[in-house]
């Protein structure tokens, strides 16, 4: 992508990872990313990541799905193709409810997946070279954004003394 350089700090447990994140942020280091094999509780807060806005997308599209499904059925059964079914009136709300419910769920679910893919720029042709393949297994990695590796490596090592790191490079 570009020639920014990073320092990667590896851990084999989440507890020192959280400590290290807090310490690095206290020392005003720029953390580019944290990679972990599973969601770590408290990490979002430690990195001051804002809450995801995906639920809003879900709500809007869910509401849209509900209106569309209900409106479509109401139109079909009263205007477009009215049929007498079981002696019920053409416009009978209880029959519309299950489909309205299902379409609401479908719209909300799919829109949230789509929003996630679009917002995080996930496309099929993306190639990803992991910093360390073990981040998909048992390794936790912090990437620190740095303009000059030589000086910063020393500084970060000194910041992190006392924390159980596996590797800093």
């Amino acid at each position, binding site marked *: 992508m570009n020639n920014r350089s990073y320092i990667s700090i590896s851990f084999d447990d989440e507890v020192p990872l959280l400590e290290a994140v807090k310490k690095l942020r206290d020392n005003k280091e720029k953390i580019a990313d944290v990679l972990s094999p599973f969601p770590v509780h408290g990490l979002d807060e430690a990195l001051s990541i804002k*809450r995801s806005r995906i639920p809003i997308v879900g709500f809007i599209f869910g509401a849209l799905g509900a209106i569309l499904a209900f409106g479509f059925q109401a139109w079909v059964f009263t205007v477009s193709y009215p049929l007498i079914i079981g002696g019920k009136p053409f416009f009978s709300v209880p029959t519309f*409810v299950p489909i309205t419910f299902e379409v609401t769920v479908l719209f909300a679910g799919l829109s949230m997946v789509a929003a996630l893919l679009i917002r995080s720029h996930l496309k099929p042709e993306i190639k990803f070279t992991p910093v360390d393949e073990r981040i998909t297994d048992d390794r936790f990695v912090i990437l620190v954004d740095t303009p000059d590796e030589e000086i910063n490596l020393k500084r970060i090592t000194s910041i992190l003394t006392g924390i159980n790191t596996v590797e800093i490079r």
Partner: protein
Amino acid sequence: MDEHFDFKKKYRNILITLMTVGILVTLAAIFITKPGASRIWANVLLNNQYFMGLSLGAAFFLAVHRVSQSGWHTVLQRIPDAMTTFLPVAFVLMLLIYFGIHNLYAWTDSSLSDKVIEGKRAWLNIPFFFVRMVIYFAGWIFLTYMMRKNSGALMTSADLKYHNRKILFAGLYLVFYGITVSASSWDWIMSLDAHWYSTLFGWYVLIGMFVTALAFITVIIWFFKRQGYLKYIRPDHVHDMAILIFAFSIFWTYQWFAQYELIWYGHLPEETSYYITRIHHFKVIFFINVGINFIVPFFGLITFNSKRQIGWVALIAAVVLIGHWIDYWLMIMPAAAGEKAGIGFLEIFMTLIYACLFIFIVFKSLSRGPLVIKNDPYIEESMNYES
């Protein structure tokens, strides 16, 4: 950690005063308005069912969490534990139904020549009715007592066997409760109109019980936090309670609608009679029921922030508590008291008596030990819980 709830004289006095007021107004309402025996007994049954449901729902809450070995509820487990201590009292109150059984249940009249009821005699007869009642309560009281005893033992001892036993009895309770809650709802509510039946009635009642219990636990947490207790119950725990209230209110609506939709579609006279009575004579209450129990918790608790404020969640929970009282009212009253049914002084103040009695027993039980069971294996996880 060693926090004790002090059941102050002030609280006792307030509860006893309210209960006395409730008893006086109820008696006055009975003698002045002359509501008729069946309406009075229907009120007794309604409140028995409602407050027994709170206890059973609380035990269900504990049992589910214990069987799944979840940690987060550990700091608040004494509250549902205390709520189950009402069950023996509920048993005595339920036995009172013996004196009003002829006013409530038409099938008790043995001179009745009714083909449908004749066919159900094997299940619906007075001796077996009370045998079943004793079996239900014996099981519930025994299993909740064992759950409470073993979790209470962890206050002083750190032996893991109590923890394991607690889980064992929770599992047994789930099985027993799953069957008996259905059967008891047929006995006490559905048989009010012995011609009518609905195959998912038991689930419907179960979910109602669970939602009320969740709401009541939340209200108690709110009250305790206001009084300065339970500092370690953080927004994360409140968030989880709110999620459960939200989810199970939706599930309740799902059940409500499933029952309504099938009966509406099938259009069989013996099934639709249930809804015809309720919609024709009690239209407003019928639609308020769905509104309060679905729309209020759904829109009230839908956002992230609204789930984390104990004051707001407790307000919604209080509305849900009233909503489910109305739900039971709709199940019981139109069938038992007919068109004479209504919500008046009698209903409100008899519920007040029961509520004071229930809260009194819960607080009494909570004041008996520390509010946190400090030897529970999950206590550390629960204290540091993040939702």
